[in-house]
């Protein structure tokens, strides 16, 4: 099992969600977050004076998938979240030790 975590542009959420559903992902957790990457935010102008917005709003999505689905899920996120411009975000994949469905007590891939 893998935990796929992605940081994406907020306006791309709907497209990413649909793309994941198409490849068979059944569950998703979404969080509104702020952060920066290599560009360290950006500057804006107010009355001719610059100010730095160093933490930009982003969306973090997390989904647990079986090993057979992990590659398709990552591909779905990358292709649907991409604009080709800076700030598109990142995808992190990590091994998942265990999953438990709280209601039934099921464990492993059955619990996903």
């Amino acid at each position, binding site marked *: 099992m893998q935990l796929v975590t992605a940081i994406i542009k907020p306006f791309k959420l709907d497209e990413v969600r649909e793309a994941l559903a198409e490849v068979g992902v059944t569950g998703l957790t979404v969080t509104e977050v702020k952060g920066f990457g290599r560009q360290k935010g950006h500057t*804006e*102008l*107010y*009355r*001719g*004076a*610059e*100010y730095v917005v160093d933490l930009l709003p982003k969306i973090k999505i997390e989904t647990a998938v079986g090993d057979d689905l992990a590659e398709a899920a990552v591909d779905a996120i990358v292709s649907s979240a991409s604009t080709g411009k800076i700030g598109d975000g990142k995808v992190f994949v990590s091994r998942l030790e265990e999953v438990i469905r709280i209601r039934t007590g099921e464990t492993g891939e059955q619990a996903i």
Partner: protein
Amino acid sequence: MENQIFELQFALDTFMFLVCGALVMWMAAGFAMLEAGLVRAKNTTEILTKNVALFAIACTMYLLCGYAIMYDGGVLLSEIVHTSAFDVATVHADSAEAGFDGDSVYSGASDFFFQVVFVATAMSIVSGAVAERMKLWSFLLFAVVMTGFIYPLEGSWTWNGADVFGLYNLGDLGFGDFAGSGIVHLAGASAALAGVLLLGPRKGKYGPDGKVKALPGANLPLATLGTFILWMGWFGFNGGSVLKLADANAAHSMAWVFLNTNAAASGGLIGALVVARLLFGKADLTMALNGALAGLVAITAGPDTPTAIQATLWGLLGGVLVVFSIITLDKLKIDDPVGAISVHGTVGILGLMLVPITNSDVTFGGQIVGALTIFGWVFGASLVTWFVIKLVFGIRVSEEEEYDGVDQSECGMEAYPEFVKTT
């Protein structure tokens, strides 16, 4: 029959002063909203407190002594005939002397009401420029001196035609300021500049390398509402300054003043919006709002003589000038959170200088001497007043109080206590 017409004229002109005065009074709400929108959220309660308190102080001080100094109206308004002593026969006699087409005859009480709201306007200009760092009570003490003495004396030299300290007479030199680009707006800005110079910039506004940093305003919907309220109130400000409505010439003149005032505001907004877009790459709403007000200030010295397209152009010049003025003041590290010194001072001078182009009774020489007199007196007297207040009470809050916001230190209450704070 003639006396009945005179009484109708009296009623109409008095009514005009009252309605226009009420419109100008509403400008206080405009200033309050504009300033509340352009300061940070932590300083909102205090700027609102300043705005309501300065209005009340201005009205009280002008009643106590300001009107007496400016128009010889008597201390405590003793020269204004009270209702118990009013005699209609004097209205008939004064009207017969003035004639149907002559100067208007109106209630003295309505004249005071119309004049007092102008004092409050001049004082409102100061509060925005010194926002976010000045002690509330030091500001209110200055308001007492400004509205009771500094403004009325300057007003007596201009609108009341008195000699400047017995030395020279501005009217004789060809000075003309219809509704107060200089007398009200430049005066307010001069007092504000003196305060800002002694007060210093807000902490964090200018970096150690001289870089100008932005401290964005908290509520642009309020700033926009404030601008619209000011725009509306200005019809009373300029329109009422025709001083008469009740004959065809006067009514037609007032209609033109309304038309030109509106045209100048529009020109100013367009000018500032386009210049800001060209300079900064984005449509800066705060500059556009300042532009509309700059257009209004630019036309205020002479809204009666330009054509509609000239009025639009005068406003446009004001709107363009105000953007460059704001940038220049920032480079000089003169920190004015709302742009009051640029809108009312820089453009106030422009407004005075535009009058002779369309009004042959006014001279460039007279305008220059008038602008220098107003600026010299109000700036000098204000500087001394601010300085004395600074020595005795101090004018600036502590660094920690400034960081926490003057809402907490001066008023003990936040404007938006249930909002989640961001960095």
